[in-house]
């Protein structure tokens, strides 16, 4: 069973490496959105420090939405999804494999790039550290929750916009706790509580989101 999970992860990683432009688009989108704010607002360090957690988190959220549309769409078009549905393995496990690979190519680069961008906002070292940790906990949850939306809107026209409308409200807790943890750390309150909540959201979504997405896929493919 674990073998199939790894096979799906490996397959999607190979596919992503052969189509690097898709991955780079997401990362550049994130970099550009985050970099636009200091340019628009001006070099007022106090303001920038204040808005940094929110801006980085919102940009990460939008970047992850941007990538969602393609999560199942290609597999659906070439028939690979049908074969996954007919595989004698739990579909939720295969979905988890797909989401894992998806996060590794779209989420992880964002996490790694975030501290570099955080320097533009004059975030303290502690703030940067917490920013990376919260993104590390939060972006997989975003991918998992997003997978449900992507599965539900599969095969619909204008699915891309619909995914965002469906999924964005569900990601609000991740945003609040993610940005909240950084703010709390910067202001000296300590962000441990927020981070525990993020970890809890991640664990819950790891368990429930693949099940929900698998059920949605069965309906969409029919």
């Amino acid at each position: 069973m674990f073998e199939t999970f790894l096979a799906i992860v490996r397959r999607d990683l190979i596919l992503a490496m052969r189509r690097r432009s898709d991955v780079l688009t997401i990362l550049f989108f994130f970099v550009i959105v985050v970099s636009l704010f200091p340019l628009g607002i001006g070099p007022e360090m106090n303001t920038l420090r204040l808005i940094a957690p929110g801006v980085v988190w919102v940009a990460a959220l939008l970047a992850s939405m941007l990538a969602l549309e393609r999560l199942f769409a290609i597999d659906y078009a070439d028939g690979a999804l049908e074969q996954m549905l007919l595989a004698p393995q739990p579909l939720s496990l295969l979905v988890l494999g797909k989401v894992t690979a998806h996060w590794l190519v779209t989420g992880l680069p964002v996490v790694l790039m975030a501290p570099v961008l955080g320097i533009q906002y004059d975030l303290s070292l502690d703030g940067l550290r917490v920013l990376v940790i919260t993104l590390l906990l939060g972006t997989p949850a975003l991918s998992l929750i997003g997978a449900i939306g992507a599965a539900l809107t599969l095969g619909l026209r204008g699915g891309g916009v619909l995914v965002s409308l469906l999924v964005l409200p569900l990601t609000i807790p991740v945003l609040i706790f993610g940005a909240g943890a950084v703010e709390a750390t910067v202001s000296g309150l300590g962000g441990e509580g927020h981070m525990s909540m993020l970890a809890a959201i991640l664990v819950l979504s790891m368990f429930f989101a693949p099940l929900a997405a698998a059920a949605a896929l069965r309906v969409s493919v029919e």
Partner: protein
Amino acid sequence: MLEVVDLECVRGDRRLFTNLSFSLSKGELLYLYGHNGSGKTTLMRAVCGLLHPTEGEIRWDGEPIRELSEEYTREVLYIGHKNGIKDDLTALENLRILSTLDGVHMTEEQAWDALERIGLRGFEDLPTTVLSQGQKRRVALARLLAHQAKLWILDEPFTALDRAAVELLQQVIREHLEQGGMAFLTTHQEVELTEGQVKRLQLGEGGQVSV
């Protein structure tokens, strides 16, 4: 043994078939035919379990397939209109990943052999995007050579294949039937396989099975 009892499928507002019943036992071939739009693909997808019929039941060894779920999908291999192969992967990678999904462990050597037998020698290491339609079809069909599923559901398997490949595929299906397998197929092409003593099911006119 596969049993289909009083099946009814509705797509949109159109009732494709109703009260459709048939059964398929070891070593039997069921040839499904009917004009375009008569519901052949819908019936096949329902038998795979991809689509829930409006009415009726599909049973495998006496048990409804919805309750068996993974126990049933292990016994079934479906090749539909879409090949289910990834354009950016090579034929070899495609075949190995598909068989891992099927729960069959295929060594690299077995995969090379299967591709050679299906007539893709020299194309194993190329991304399938550069292959022709017929060659892509062959990659998808190479799965049949290494698969242990009892029931093969093949929706128009002969499309885009050249004469030699059609012959080979018929041979593979015959071997499968001789080993006690079952096959359920549609085709618009004239092939020897569907002549003679096979079960036939015509859709569009009452959906009766004739032998």
